[in-house]
Each structure stands twice: as structure tokens, then as C-alpha cells.
């Protein structure tokens, strides 16, 4: 049996030779109290799906290359860093911890996330932050259409541009965009960027490790709260 003190500082798993199931099982075993490595390095991911999903332990996982769908899905506690791009649904339904993508993310990044921080240093595609429920998402580049669709709570920071229908049917999530917005969705409006929002932005950018962007350059968007209860006079907005 390997004890924590005897464990090597970095456990390297080569997905070219190790089945994904084995990697995820070993990572899951950590949440059951099993002693083991706290720092993991995954090489040759080759776009595999569901890498490091369902973690629930305070570990660091570095993925050296591109990951497929649902990388770090439903993450709790863990810090997962992808030194590449990620496919659909990265960090979907994340509860806590951090997921950092050095490259770009496909659609639905951070979908329905309920906590934690997702950082995308490249661009994120369509539906970034869709139905977000408390997650914080910071995108250094731009996001695609329908981002923050039905976003409930949490914060989405976009240092680049946003596509069409940003924040469509948004609830109480906070949206910040530094560049242009191609269009706002139903019930999403621009709001005043006050001092407390600048402070919120500063904190989010700081946590994301982005220090070359001025929070004052952002615009804030949120819900007009006109569609919270159905009124027939609003039917044209649906």
C-alpha cells in the first residue's frame, strides 16, 4: 500500500497506454479517503472525452494536450488545467474548484455550473455559461452566440467580444463584456457599471490570473426582469 507521504510528487498517466476508465477510477478513489498522489499529469489525452470528470478531492490535474467533451465535468474541489483546447461541455455542472483551459473551448463551456471557477484563455464557442447556476467563468478571448442563455446566477466575464443573443432569458447572473456584443437576447439589458461591479471584476480577473486588462473597460449586462412572470403583453418577446 502506498501512503501519502511515500507518494511521488507528480503521478503521470499516459492515456496512450492507460485506459481512461483506470485514470478516472484512480482519481475517484481519492475522494473515498484513499491516500495517493495529489498532483497528476495526464499525457497523450488525444481528445479523449470525460477526462477527469466527477472529481471530488483537492488534487491538481494537468492535462498535456487537447481534451474532448465534458473535460472535468461536475468537478468538485479539484484544480484541472488543460494545456490545449477542450471540446463541448468543459467543466459542465462544476460545483467547486477550478478548471483552467490554456487554449479555446468548444460550445457549452461551464454549462449549468453551480460553483467554482472556469478560466478559458482562448475563445469559448456558443452557449458558454448556458444555464449557469453560480459558477464564475472568465474568458480571455471571445464567446459565441447564445452565451449565458437562461443564466441563473454566477458571473461571466468576457475580455473579448460576445456573439448574438447574449444572456437570452437571463435571470440573476452578472455578465461583463469588454468588447462588442453582437446582440442581446430577450430580457437582457445593459446596466450601469458601478464601483462594486468594478471590484467584482477586479476580483474575478485576479483569480483568473489576468492582470493586463482594465476592469473599467467592461460593460455590464443583466436581466431587465420583465419576463419573470408571464404577461400576455410580452408575448412578442418570446
Amino acid at each position, binding site marked *: 500500500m502506498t501512503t501519502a507521504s511515500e507518494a511521488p510528487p507528480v503521478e503521470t498517466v499516459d492515456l496512450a497506454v492507460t485506459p481512461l476508465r483506470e485514470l478516472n477510477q484512480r482519481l*475517484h478513489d481519492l475522494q473515498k479517503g484513499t491516500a495517493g498522489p495529489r498532483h497528476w499529469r495526464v499525457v497523450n489525452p488525444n481528445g479523449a*472525452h470525460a477526462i477527469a470528470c*466527477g472529481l471530488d478531492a483537492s488534487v491538481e490535474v494537468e492535462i498535456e494536450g487537447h481534451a474532448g*467533451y465534458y473535460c472535468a465535468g461536475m468537478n*468538485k474541489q479539484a484544480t484541472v488545467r488543460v494545456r490545449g483546447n477542450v471540446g463541448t461541455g468543459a467543466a459542465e455542472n462544476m460545483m467547486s474548484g477550478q478548471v483552467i483551459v490554456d487554449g479555446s473551448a468548444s460550445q457549452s463551456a461551464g454549462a449549468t455550473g453551480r460553483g467554482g471557477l472556469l478560466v478559458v484563455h482562448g475563445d469559448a464557442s456558443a452557449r458558454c455559461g448556458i*444555464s449557469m447556476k453560480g459558477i464564475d467563468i472568465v474568458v480571455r478571448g471571445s464567446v459565441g452566440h447564445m452565451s449565458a442563455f*437562461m443564466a441563473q446566477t454566477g458571473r461571466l466575464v468576457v475580455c473579448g467580444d460576445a456573439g448574438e443573443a447574449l444572456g437570452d432569458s437571463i*435571470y440573476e447572473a452578472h455578465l461583463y463584456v469588454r468588447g462588442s456584443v453582437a446582440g442581446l437576447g430577450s430580457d437582457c439589458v445593459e446596466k450601469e457599471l458601478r464601483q462594486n461591479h468594478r471590484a467584482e471584476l477586479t476580483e474575478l480577473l485576479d483569480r483568473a490570473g489576468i492582470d493586463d486588462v482594465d476592469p473599467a473597460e467592461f460593460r455590464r449586462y443583466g436581466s431587465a426582469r420583465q419576463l*419573470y*412572470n408571464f404577461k400576455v403583453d410580452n408575448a412578442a418577446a418570446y
Partner: protein
Amino acid sequence: MTTVDGQLWNLRESYLYDRIVIAEIHRAAREGIYDIRGFGAKRRVPHFDDLLFLGASVSRYPLEGYRERCGTDVTLGTRFARTPLELKIPVTIAGMSFGALSAPAKEALGRGATEVGTSTTTGDGGMTPEEREHSKTLVYQLLPSRYGMNPDDLRRADAIEVVVGQGAKPGGGGMLLGHKISDRVAAMRDLPKGIDQRSACRHPDWTGPDDLEIKIQELREITDWEKPIFVKVGATRTYYDVQLAVKAGADVIVVDGMQGGTAATQDVFIEHVGIPTLPAIPLAVQALTELGMHRQVQLIVSGGIRTGADVAKALALGADAVSIGTAALIAMGDNSPEYEDQYRQIGSSAGFYDDWQAGRDPVGISTQDDELAARFDPALGGRRIANYLRVLTLEAQTLARACGKSHVHNLEPEDLVALTVEAAAMARVPLAGTDWIPGAAS
């Protein structure tokens, strides 16, 4: 004017514009919004009532009622899951949300299901501690909204049901009106209190069967391939949906016919979208059979299951189990004449009450009002559910024995005939007294 016993005999009601239609036009003109209601389809469609069993006689040998054993157990999730569900009866409780239903009602469903050895299911809104505590076997739904979704509950569940659609509204999302968004419901769903809560009609992180296959892979990875994965679809293009769900890796397919219940859906949706349960079963069985997956991937059928006869007929057509929703609520006291006075006070009547969306249920089932919910005794409700499930099972066994079957799963289409041409065509069994199955290759 011709009158008999005070009734006018010379007034002729229009078939096209009967009183129901007239009342709805008046309501629409007055309120300016479509009718949203609970319950399920109220129109008549071909159903299990249009089928009959051919009991044993000279050419078939029956089993003795009350004496000879007729098995009812079913195993769900044998394809990939490490821990399939072992149920004692082939009748399960369908997904109904905390939010649509009160917490005591959810608890009662768990108690009743557990007492007779079957499963119950969460719903759109997450898993409550009460239902987990009182449900030995609990299926956790993964819905487009993902309200309350979290990996801990995923692991606490005994199976996972990916909900693509439901029979009452295939292609539609959900709606929980503001007066049912209590503090607790709002907290579970990460929403402000009192708003009209929309449930999305599409999943947020997958589109199409190829994505679904990867989503299922993720769910299996998160739960270490332990839990059976169900895929639930509303009955529409059932043949294709079932084949695609199998291809995506489902362990169990749930097909919900258009009679399936709902807590809150537009009436126009309930009555005009989807196909009845009766034709959906042969379509699903055909899809599974052609893939060599019938009985390998289990089929659960729901939508209008009320009696043991319905259960037996669904199984005879090829289902492995059935699921009940509306009937379970009725078993717990919904629409009981006992509450007639209170139904009258809210403009309804026992036997007709369908405003489950309104949250004013005098029985305390479809409400989030603490005072109303407190009227409902979960222990008594659980007992009634258990009794009802036992009756369904006994009735199904009675019919199976009459057909000479030592297990309800041994019932087969050959045991059935249809009373109408429509039912014969849809169920793919002969019209009674003939060997004619309309539409079947000669």
C-alpha cells in the same frame, strides 16, 4: 318548446362547438393566454381498453389462481451497468418533481414504492433528502434544466434517467408557475422566489444522438459504470428514437405515450402532440428487436397505465415494465370526492381537477403551500401507493395465469386481440374474431 322533466328537447348542441369548446374560446378571449394545466390528455385515443386477452381453454393450459406461482420480478439495466436494478414488480413510479409535488407527497411515493419493492424517480428540481431516505430504489433524472443537479446525488442514486422528453409534451420544456416557487424550491433550483420558472426543452450540453452517446459515457465515468442509464423519450418518432437511444448506449429505454401526465403544460400541447401509448410499444419493440436488443435493453412504458389489465397488456406487447404517474397521484387521494367542497371553492370538482399548476390542491399533493401540504400524511399516502401497486400486480398476475403464464413477462402479443380496427393496427394484434392485423404484411 318541447320539454320532458324540465329538459329542453329541441336544443341541439353543436358537435363542432360543444360547451367545452365554447368555454375555452370565452376563456381565451378573456385571459389572453393559452390554458396551462396538469393531468394528461383528456381526449379519447386508442388505448389498452381496446384490447382483450384470449384466456386459456382447450388449446392453452391456464395456471391456478391463488396457488400456482406467477413471477413478477424484473431486472433493469443489464446491458452495461455494474449494479442493475432488481425490482419485485414490473410497475415503477415515474418522475415527478419536488416543486410540482409537495415534499410529503414525494416522500409517500418513496415509501409506497419501497414497501412493494419497486423504484421511484426524482423529477425536474433535484433530489430531496426525504425521497432519498424513503426510497430504497431511486432513479435520478438528468433533465435539460439541470435544476438541483449535482454529482453527490448522482452517486446517491440507484439509476440515472436522461430525460429527452415526456409524453405530455414531446419537444416542449417545462413550466413551474411562480406561486409554486417557494423558498425551498427556489433554493434548490438557484432561482429567485416567485418567478415563473422555465425548464428548457433542449439539453444545454449535447445535441443529437452522437453527443448523447458521449454524455452517457461521462455519466458512466462519473459514477464508475455502476448505475444503469435510462433514456426517456416522449412517444413520437418512437422507432427511430429507440434505435438512436440504444446506439447512444442506454441500458433502459422509457417510452412515455401522449396520455402521460404533467404538472403544468399548455392544453394545446397535451392534446395535440405525440402518439398514444398503444402504437408506441410495438414501434419500440420493433426497434429493439431489429437491433437484437429486445430484453437486453429493457423497455419501460408509461402513459395511461391505470389497472393491472393495462400493466399486463403493456407487458404482453413487449414492455419489461411500466411506470405510473397520474394514477399514483390519484391513489394518494388526488380528485377524491372526500374533498368535493374544497374543489368547489376553487372552481373545480372531484373527478375533474387538473389545475395542478396552480398550487392550491386541497389534498396537499400538487402544492408548495405549507398549510395545504401539511394536510397530506406521507405514511398514509405511502400505504395507499403500496396497496395500489399490489392491486396492479395482482390483477396482472391474474390475467397472466389465465393465459397460462408462470411469469408476467411470458405474456405475448399472441395473447391479445383488438376490439377496433384502429387498435388492431396500432397494437399489431388481430381484430377480435379474425386473423387480420391492419397494415401487417400478408
